[in-house]
């Protein structure tokens, strides 16, 4: 299975600022995903990060708020822009293994004050 790392592991940010989260995979993968897990909640897909094209966003998530980059097949970034306390969540990236399951990074715990 793919090994996935995320940076930073956690951060405390002030409202109105932006944070970029990095996701690195140890092998080339076609599909990468970004999820949000709000406190005490389940996971919600934010977007699919497509290599060489714009990300595909789920309903309720927009590019201006969550810009995503995917410069190659092993790396992606998610930016949380103009943050508010409601953005306090765990953000996880995942990759789609050819065995159909997804493997997840350790997550980035974001607190917005």
């Amino acid at each position, binding site marked *: 299975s793919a090994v996935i790392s995320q940076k930073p592991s956690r951060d405390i940010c002030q409202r109105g600022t932006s944070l970029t989260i990095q996701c690195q995979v140890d092998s080339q993968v076609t599909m990468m995903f970004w999820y949000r897990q709000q406190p005490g909640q389940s*996971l919600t897909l934010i977007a699919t990060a497509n290599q060489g094209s714009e990300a595909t966003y789920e309903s309720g998530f927009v590019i201006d708020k969550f810009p995503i980059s995917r410069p190659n097949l092993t790396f992606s970034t998610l930016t949380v822009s103009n943050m508010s306390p409601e953005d306090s969540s765990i953000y996880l990236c995942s990759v789609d293994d050819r065995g159909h*399951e*997804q493997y997840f990074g350790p997550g980035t715990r974001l607190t917005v004050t």
Partner: protein
Amino acid sequence: AQSVAQPEDQVNVAEGNPLTVKCTYSVSGNPYLFWYVQYPNRGLQFLLKYITGDNLVKGSYGFEAEFNKSQTSFHLKKPSALVSDSALYFCAVRNLSSNTGKLIFGQGTTLQVKP
């Protein structure tokens, strides 16, 4: 619309007893079904999956799950629970007819195993 339901917020079992964590799903077409576990301050770990074939699938850490198409269920089971199994468990579904790879997660069930 696709959905996954985990009807129990929390399941409590005594160590050594069998455990079941319930999951039902709703998708159009044939599903891929998954179980993940999340330990405190950790990411999600893949436990097992059902794609096709035998309805009883075995996974990591002695867990297994039974796919029941008529009841649209995919309950997670373990014959003998360990205290270390205490964690948050998520059921997820992926629609085969979708090319997006999107996973739909249930709301999660906290498993508490007491010594």
